[in-house]
């Protein structure tokens, strides 16, 4: 390296002119040698200042450069808050559900009924975080409700989000009373009663109040179970106030949650038609989707958005790993064995890309078998569709349904697609994690919104906690300002979401929790942070030494030599 050459060259001629006292002659050879004359004052001074100038550059410029360029910027993060969120210390999610009661009664009686029902309800409830609060609604508009509900079904949950369920008390004269009917497309429970079942003001309990309380408890049982399960898995902090779940419920919920896709603000649905031959080569998928799937997607729009695409693949063959279908004489059908279903999707050849665009992809595969191999069924159950957890669903459309004429020609009509579309809708509902109960779809969707909001809050909190741990455990990673900003945003939105939950405004809570989750993920997966995670401090030696070592050695040696001779000169004086 030239620095060493330069330094050597500059000191080489001088050194044999060095004054002898600095090196006491011990060897005879040295003693015999002619003593070099003392070095001139001027050249001594000049050599020292030359060495000093190198050192000045190193110290005055090199050190600041080193300090400035290798300093790791770490933005301040609210570590305590992040850890508290992760441990569940800040937000204890509660789910106060408001239930409006429309009773064609004088206010006094209605209040009394409400109070007794609330008492009965509170006695039934074991899960303190989730409680139902009854309130009197304004008298209903005299409209025929059954017409209105389909229109109102989705709007009720999104606009009037304060009310989770309405109870309409309808006096009837005939039939068994009290009885109830949950409207399938509206969050409304109709309760039929005979007027004499209204509790008198003096009594503390009545069959009607107990009946309503039990009905409500039944309706929200699954939601309570889901939330309790979620709280128990999320963190240990909530276990104290949690109601205990039976092992069967727990297992069932576990099964459901493993089947459902991870929550995402946008899902991508891919509908694919596969056939081993050249027919059918077209399908009326657009209008089929419009008729069968679009209404469902609309009602989910409060929770997630969906994008849809479709494709047709001809001459799609089975993957070679599964056994070919066998003809079953008893069923008069070709059968697939149950254990082969998991390998039915020919992942190697069928163009089902794992992800298009931003969100996760849900695949729905419609398989039309060859005419010679139809009808094609699952051997054990005789079913023609199945669900693949967290991936999508498969339906087999047999061209010749038993007992019917061929329904498959070159193109599939909307009507022919109908059954498959219903199957897909059900599969989509399962894949999105919608609970099985109760029978009212808007109620189930609002239940899903609550569950999703809670789970998003938990996952964002735990992401923040993980980030705080990473921050503390790895002091060598840089943390840019954008991370601090994302963390602040996530914390603010988490707090807002928690407040909304407490107020019972679940739709708002879901939206805020979604933002919080997004920001938390953004902060955690910041690209510039991970660069140095696997770069321990020892490696820096390997970076610095090969270049700086050779440069530093002559500098240090020259400085030491000069210091030594300077000291001995001082001592000699």
């Amino acid at each position, binding site marked *: 390296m*030239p*620095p060493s*050459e*330069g330094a050597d*060259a*500059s000191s*080489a*001629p001088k*050194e*044999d*002119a*060095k004054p002898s006292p600095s*090196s006491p002659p011990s060897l005879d050879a040295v003693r015999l040698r002619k003593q070099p*004359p003392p070095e*001139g004052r001027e*050249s001594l001074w*000049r*050599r020292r*200042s*030359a*060495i000093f*100038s*190198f050192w*000045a*550059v*190193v110290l005055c*410029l*090199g050190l600041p*450069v*080193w300090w*400035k*360029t*290798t300093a790791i910027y770490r933005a301040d993060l609210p570590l305590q808050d992040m850890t508290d969120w992760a441990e569940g210390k800040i937000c204890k999610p509660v789910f106060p559900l408001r239930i409006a009661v429309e009773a064609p009664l004088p206010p006094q009686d209605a209040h009394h009924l409400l109070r007794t029902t609330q008492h009965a309800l509170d006695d039934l409830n074991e899960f303190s975080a989730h409680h139902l609060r009854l309130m009197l609604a304004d008298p209903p508009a005299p409209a025929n409700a059954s017409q209105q509900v389909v229109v109102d079904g989705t709007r009720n949950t999104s606009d009037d989000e304060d009310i989770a369920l309405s109870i309409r008390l309808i006096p009837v004269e005939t039939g068994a009373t009290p009885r109830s009917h949950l409207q399938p497309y509206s969050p409304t429970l109709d309760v039929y009663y005979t007027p004499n079942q209204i509790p008198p003001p003096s009594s503390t309990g009545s069959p009607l109040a107990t009946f309503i309380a039990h009905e409500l408890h039944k309706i929200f049982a699954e939601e309570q179970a889901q939330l309790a399960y979620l709280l128990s898995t999320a963190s240990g902090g909530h276990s104290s106030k949690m109601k205990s779940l039976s092992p069967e419920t727990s297992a069932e919920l576990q099964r459901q949650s493993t089947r459902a896709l991870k929550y995402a603000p946008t899902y991508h649905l891919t509908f694919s038609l596969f056939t081993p031959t050249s027919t059918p080569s077209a399908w009326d998928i657009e209008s089929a989707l419009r008729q069968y799937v679009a209404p469902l997607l609309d009602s989910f729009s409060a929770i997630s958005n969906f994008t849809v695409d479709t494709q047709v693949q001809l001459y799609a063959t089975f993957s070679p790993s599964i056994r070919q279908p066998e003809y079953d004489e008893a069923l008069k059908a070709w059968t697939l064995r149950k254990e082969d279903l998991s390998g039915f999707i020919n992942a190697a050849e069928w163009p089902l890309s794992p992800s298009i665009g931003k969100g996760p992809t849900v695949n729905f595969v419609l398989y039309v078998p060859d005419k010679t191999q139809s009808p094609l069924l699952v051997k054990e159950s005789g079913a023609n569709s199945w669900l693949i957890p967290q991936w999508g669903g498969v339906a087999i459309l047999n061209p010749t349904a038993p007992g019917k004429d061929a329904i498959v020609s070159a193109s599939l009509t909307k009507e022919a697609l109908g059954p498959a579309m219903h199957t897909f809708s059900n599969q989509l509902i399962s894949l999105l994690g919608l609970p099985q109960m109760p029978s009212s779809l808007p109620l189930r969707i609002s239940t899903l919104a609550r569950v999703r909001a809670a789970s998003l809050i938990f996952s964002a909190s735990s992401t923040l906690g993980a980030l705080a741990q990473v921050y503390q455990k790895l002091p060598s990673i*840089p943390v840019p300002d954008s991370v601090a900003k994302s963390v602040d945003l996530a914390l603010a939105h988490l707090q807002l979401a928690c407040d909304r939950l407490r107020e019972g405004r679940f739709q708002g809570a879901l939206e805020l929790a979604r933002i919080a989750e997004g920001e938390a993920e953004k902060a955690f997966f910041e690209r510039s942070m991970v*660069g*140095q995670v696997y*770069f321990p401090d020892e490696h820096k030696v390997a*970076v610095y030494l090969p*270049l*700086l070592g050779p*440069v530093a050695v002559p500098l240090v040696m020259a400085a030491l030599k000069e210091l030594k001779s300077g000291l001995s000169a001082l001592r000699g004086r």
Partner: protein
Amino acid sequence: MPLDQQKALLFGSAAAVRLLLFTAFPSLPNRLAGRVEVSTPVTSFKRLQEGLFLYTHNVSPYDGGVYHQAPLLLPLFSLLPNPSYYPFATSVLFTMVDLLSALALAQIAESGQSVVTRLFKSSRKDLRWSSVAIAAGFLFNPFTVATCIARSTSALTNLFILTAMAKASQGASFTFVLALSFASYLAMHPLLLFPPLLVLLYDARASKTKSAPSPFLFSVVHTLGLAAAVCALLFVSALLTGSWDFLAATYGVRLLLPDLTPNVGLWWYFFTEMFDSFREFFLGVFWLHVASYMPGLTIRLRKQPLFVATTLTGIFAIFTPYPSIADATLYLSLVPLFRHLFPLMRYTFLASASILYASFLGPAFYHLWIYAGSGNANFFYAITLVWSLGLSIIVGDSLYAALRDELDVERPELRGEEVKRI
């Protein structure tokens, strides 16, 4: 043959060789301009043409991210006819640049500052080549010819550096400051030549006028003059391009090395392999490494400032971010000024062998890597290491020789004895 006649013959033949090469092989200039050994991102003629095209179409020449050269080159070259159709004017310009450089070199040689300065008189001062021989060594150096044919703008930088040296050795303050400010404006790193050349100018002036001016006042006046000249050039450039963006596109590129096109230097390979987080640090280290030689050498060899300046050009040819053979040719043409040191140099064979080895194998290995695909980047990088090794052997060896020469003057009784380290 009288001196003037010799000079005329030399310059005429050098010009003839260049113009002949330009006209007889019309594809040669473009081919050479594409060679990484000759054209770097900051000196390439092709990039200059790109900038020129944008400039003549009223677009900022730095918008394309290709042009990294000084803005004042643009009006100069826009005066010439388009070199794709009428290459002759450009050829004449670059030939003239070379001839002027040789003239400046001859002036340096004639001043005799290389052997006899105000404070130092070499004991071997009679051992020197004539100025014509030294100019011929520059003009007929194949590296110089290649630089000229490739129309690399480092030829202009070399011209201004040589002019600054010549004017400093003649004691002409004004032209020295002007020439050095142009050189610094074009290539930035020649600014480091200012202290040794200022010492040279001071010595030349002091020996001329017999009454030494005050060193402090002298250096302050010249430093201010240089600062004013450079600022004026930068200001004119800003007026010309309409913004100060050119600073980032020219000097920023030299400082921060965003373009890692291979060249004969050591930086590009190092920084392709560098961890991103250490990039800034090592940029600082490399630049400080280049700069750190200047004060040390200037102090240690205070009596031979021209030699310090020469050695610094050698260091530039090795350690700057975008060196080319044009930088090497500047150094190799200045070294013959110190003919009297040659007997003291110990590794002349090794140095000349490695330079020759690198200049023949370099293009071959580059071809293997880029075109044939049978080699990789390490082939070319190994050759640039050999090239830099050869140059640094010359630098180190000549430094040793210069110090030995000083020692011989200080202690004539030691002359001819072997130097030993204790």
